[in-house]
């Protein structure tokens, strides 16, 4: 730190709170993003626990049906836009400049803005619980006609989505520019770590679809207040069209949430298998093709809307084929581990957990892609199980893997390995207790987003609720680990994981100086 202050050309930094509000440093902003995501994870988690508390037994015990609908809606919105996406951007902020040997992001001031928009949107979302009529209650997908009815909270949700969209777009523009223009000499595109590649492609996806989402919710807003009839059937609009436009955004969005996760796992697994990533080139190409193909499968979310058979067949085939490059990635991770000299520190545990459990989610996705099957399973707990296997044991596990992996680099201190392992094992056991029974519930016909259910579903629901509280409480271990690491962790080596070979490990100290790579490193 001392050495770097000398490079600061003498001008001082604000300290305390002002440092964080005014910061344009990619490391500070990365930290802000990650803490914000963690707080949102806990907030969204509390909503989920209320949901599960109500579903512990049949009948109504804890909340009213109206409030239950608000809980499911806000849980989805907060987790998608408040937890997973900001966490991924947090990683990009910390890691992209260090991995490509850049001093900072391309537009530091814009970077500050894109973060500070997030709390504004979050406050708007959370406070909508307290306005007359309560929060939005039509599901995170905001389908009309429900979303055209309802109170002021729907407008708050629309504005929050606008703000979150602007924030994501600014973040994405920053990331693309940084990666394209600010690589160190010798850091050619094909030498970039896979995490950088996945984020480059994700950022392009964001720039392509976030504006479409913004347009869609703008149409909702004008339908609500300015007399347009895009989706209002009574005025000649078409509510099904909303679903088409929403999912045109929505399916690429799920890849926005998983591609950076692929990137993190592709950094972690080679480091702990002590082998280079198997099929680096395939991984890059597979990521690219997943991104392109993700634009032509959206209607697999709409098989029950009365599409003509030919359209159903098209989207069924397209969806099944897009699973091929995803499958190739799984094979590549397994091949990377094959005959590696593996050790199982916490990041590797989460990465392996990712590979195993994400694959289950991929398979249930394939099941849902079969149109006649999906017509049975649409809007049941089977779908809930599917997307939690890909999002929780997929994206979230990758985030955990990344946090444990880079925490020593970021803080300069080791985390408590015992506690980390405990966090992994408790999470994994309770995660499966929570979500695996949902497959059975869905197959037996239990619809999603209902506060009460028929008696025959009682046992699996009780089990799931137990899993939920176990899983939720286990996440507090992460908080303890991180705080303990920051406060009193043992000094971490600069090259903490000897199998890791990207620039932040080989060229920078732990913690890295506040301004790293002020003079760019020369790669090979």
């Amino acid at each position, binding site marked *: 730190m001392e050495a770097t202050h000398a490079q600061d050309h003498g001008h001082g930094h604000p300290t305390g709170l002002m440092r964080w509000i005014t910061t344009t440093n990619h490391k500070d902003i990365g930290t802000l993003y990650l803490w914000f995501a963690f707080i949102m994870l806990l907030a969204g988690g509390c909503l989920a626990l209320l949901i599960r508390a109500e579903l512990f037994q049949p009948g109504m015990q804890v909340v009213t049906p109206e409030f239950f609908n608000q809980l499911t809606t806000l849980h989805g919105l907060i987790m998608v836009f408040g937890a997973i996406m900001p966490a991924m951007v947090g990683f990009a902020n910390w890691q992209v400049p260090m991995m490509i040997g850049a001093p900072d992001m391309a537009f530091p001031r814009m970077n500050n803005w894109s973060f500070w928009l997030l709390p504004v949107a979050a406050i708007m979302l959370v406070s909508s619980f307290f306005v007359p009529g309560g929060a939005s209650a039509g599901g995170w997908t905001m389908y009309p006609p429900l979303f055209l009815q309802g109170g002021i909270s729907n407008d708050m949700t629309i504005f929050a989505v606008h703000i979150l969209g602007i924030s994501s777009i600014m973040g994405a523009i920053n990331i693309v520019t940084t990666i394209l223009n600010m690589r160190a000499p010798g850091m050619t595109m094909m030498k970039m770590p896979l995490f950088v590649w996945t984020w480059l492609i994700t950022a392009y996806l964001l720039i392509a679809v976030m504006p479409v989402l913004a347009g869609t919710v703008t149409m909702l807003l004008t339908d609500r207040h300015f007399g347009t009839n895009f989706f209002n059937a009574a005025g000649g609009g078409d509510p099904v069209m909303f679903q088409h436009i929403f999912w045109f955004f929505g399916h690429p969005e799920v890849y926005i949430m998983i591609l950076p996760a692929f990137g993190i796992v592709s950094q972690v697994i080679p480091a702990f298998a002590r082998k280079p990533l198997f099929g680096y080139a*395939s991984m*890059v*190409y597979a990521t690219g093709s*997943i991104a*392109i193909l993700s634009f032509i499968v959206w209607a697999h979310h709409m098989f029950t809307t009365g599409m003509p058979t030919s359209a159903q*067949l*098209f989207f069924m085939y397209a969806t099944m084929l897009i699973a091929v*490059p995803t*499958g190739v990635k799984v094979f590549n991770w397994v091949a990377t581990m094959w005959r590696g000299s593996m050790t199982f520190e916490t990041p590797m545990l989460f990465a392996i957990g990712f590979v195993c459990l994400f694959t289950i989610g991929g398979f249930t996705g394939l099941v849902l892609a079969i149109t006649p099957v999906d017509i049975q399973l649409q809007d049941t707990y089977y779908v809930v199980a599917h997307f939690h296997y890909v999002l929780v044991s997929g994206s979230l596990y990758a985030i955990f893997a990344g946090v444990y992996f880079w925490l020593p680099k970021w803080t300069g201190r080791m985390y408590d390995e015992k506690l980390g392992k405990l966090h992994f094992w408790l999470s994994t056991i309770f995660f499966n207790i929570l979500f695996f029974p949902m497959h059975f519930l869905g197959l037996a016909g239990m619809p999603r987003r209902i506060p009460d259910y028929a008696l025959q579903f009682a046992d699996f629901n009780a089990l799931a609720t137990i899993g939920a509280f176990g899983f939720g409480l286990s996440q507090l271990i992460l908080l303890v680990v991180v705080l303990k690491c920051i406060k009193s962790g043992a000094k971490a080596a600069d090259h903490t994981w000897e199998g890791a070979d990207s620039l932040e490990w080989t060229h920078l100290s732990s913690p890295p100086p506040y301004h790293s790579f002020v003079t760019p490193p020369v790669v090979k």
Partner: protein
Amino acid sequence: MEQAPRKTSFLQAARAVFWSFFGVRKRTDYDSDAVKLTLGQVIAAGLIGAALFVGVLLGVVYLVTHLAAK
């Protein structure tokens, strides 16, 4: 910056895109792609590839619904 965009066969771009849809590409091929292909070429080939992909799928759908109608 580092690679002067060199004129190259459209075939290589097409081949790169085909393999990428499958998700597999040999390291050596990839390295030569990276040297020979420009970003614009890959994007163009990617979009054409995606259009072809859609076309083939539509053809299959047509065949399936057509045969089923008999």
